[in-house]
């Protein structure tokens, strides 16, 4: 696996008395695509929320390229190169696609209130330059037709793509995706999976993918991590995990196991 990009050790997050994440330890390799699966309430989203510090874990450490992330504010974690999408698209609904993408580049830009107020000169040059970059992302994700509309009024699938675009605009080292294909039609899901794989392969960005759609998981992930009640119960190649008896036991009674590759995923929830 080589040198790991992310090292998570003994991560624990509690809400009241309930442990959402319970001593989880795992690595994410450079340019690796790691899928996180598990039954509902297993703590998948909580792990993502810890990775970019939206939640403050009570114990454990998260290192990105050897630097500790815990204790940082989310905005600072973002500046270190952690990007993130949400289960239900969390766009800036009244802004258009370009502005949403440009916000992804916020930490790469420097214009403050005074320079912005003056506009002519540095602020304008910076603006033009970063817009060009976002333009490329829009082209890559096929977002140009939606240019002027407020993002909140666009179809669900498009919003998901914009959110991915916004994360890419951040030029991240680690991309956290929370159910990127949930609620999509089969074709949309395939398309999105294609984008994810391409981002991972071509740009070399490490991806942590939380997803219920086993088709996507098994088709794109290098490794799969299985969570149950906040604990890591299995990590390994997709095929190995599928046969792990621990995993089978965890999913017992659940409709989605064994996850037959090619079957549509469960509805989002």
């Amino acid at each position: 696996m080589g040198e790991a990009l992310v090292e998570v050790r003994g991560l624990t997050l509690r809400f009241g008395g309930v442990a959402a994440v319970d001593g989880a330890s795992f690595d994410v390799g450079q340019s690796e695509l790691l899928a996180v699966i598990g039954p509902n309430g297993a703590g998948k989203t909580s792990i993502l929320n810890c990775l970019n510090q939206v939640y403050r874990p009570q114990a454990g450490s998260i290192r990105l390229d050897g630097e500790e992330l815990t204790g940082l504010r989310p905005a600072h974690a973002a500046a270190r190169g952690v990007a993130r999408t949400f289960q239900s698209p969390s766009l800036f609904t009244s802004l258009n696609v370009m502005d949403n993408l440009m916000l992804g580049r916020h930490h790469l830009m420097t214009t403050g209130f005074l320079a912005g107020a003056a506009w002519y000169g540095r602020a304008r040059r910076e603006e033009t330059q970063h817009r060009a970059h976002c333009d490329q992302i829009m082209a890559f994700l096929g977002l140009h037709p939606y240019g002027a509309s407020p993002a909140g009024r666009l179809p669900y699938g498009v919003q998901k793509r914009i959110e991915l675009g916004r994360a890419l605009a951040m030029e991240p080292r680690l991309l956290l995706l929370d159910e990127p294909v949930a609620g999509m039609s089969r074709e949309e899901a395939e398309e999105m999976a294609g984008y994810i794989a391409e981002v991972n392969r071509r740009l070399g960005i490490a991806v942590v993918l939380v997803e219920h759609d086993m088709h996507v998981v098994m088709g794109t992930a290098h490794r799969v991590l299985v969570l149950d009640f906040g604990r890591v119960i299995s990590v390994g190649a997709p095929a190995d995990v599928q046969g792990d008896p621990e995993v089978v036991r965890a999913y017992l009674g659940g409709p989605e196991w064994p996850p037959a590759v090619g079957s549509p995923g469960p509805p989002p929830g």
Partner: protein
Amino acid sequence: MKDFLQFLVAGLAVGALYALVALGFVIIYKATGIINFALGALALLGAYLTYNISQTWGVPFFAAVVLAMAACAGMALLIERLILSRMVGRPTFAVIMITIGLAIVIEQGVIVIWGGATLPLDDPWGLRTMPLGDVVVAQSDLARIVLAGALLAGFFALFRYTTLGVAMRAVASDQEAALAQGISVRMIVGITWAIAAAVATMAGVMLAAGGRGVEPSLGVIALVAFPSVVLGGLDSPIGSVVGGAVIGIVEVMTAGYSERIPEFLGANFHRVTPYVVLVVILLVRPYGLFGTKAVQRV
């Protein structure tokens, strides 16, 4: 010591008014998550209705108060149904501003109907007093404390022991879950407005009682009561009682011992003490003494 007790009683009487208004804010906030800035205007309307029913129509005072509470509650219900219910899902900012717009319309309407002059309320207490040890207690102050206490106790009983109360608590804790339980959230929200208006009417009447009379500036009581709400916690009915009492006492004490207040704080420092308390409490406990800290889920 005599002064202290005198101020204590006066502070409690002022605090009782604050508590009533604060409760009005809290119940609406719990059910809907907004602050109803029209509450002061409803208190004003309630006081004028009481005047009208008792003085113009000759209904006995207490019956008039009850009728006015009912009428004002009905009015609030109507406003909620006709206007506020259209605002579901809109930003808090917009809803708060609607209530401010309502306050303006109601206040001006009252002035158009009854004029701007002070009207006598002829309440049963007037300026009568009774001795209580060393202290002279205005009967109207006593009535404020007792009636506010009774109304608050009534509310807590309703909130805790009746089906309606259970439904209200359900709506307050989780609207979606309440809906799933078959509770009509729409109806409950309307009822909270009605209850708040009735409570505010009582506050308005009690403010006008004791010789002040009914006049257009009665509604200010709502603005002055805000610090009590924050001190107690925006979502805590118990907090509104404690907050009201504390702020009332602090305010009257500051005024009463104004000679001992450093001069650089200015004359009439008691006007801003409630807000100073408010700033301090927000620094120490942003969600008030009894309020619950909002947890934001992602």
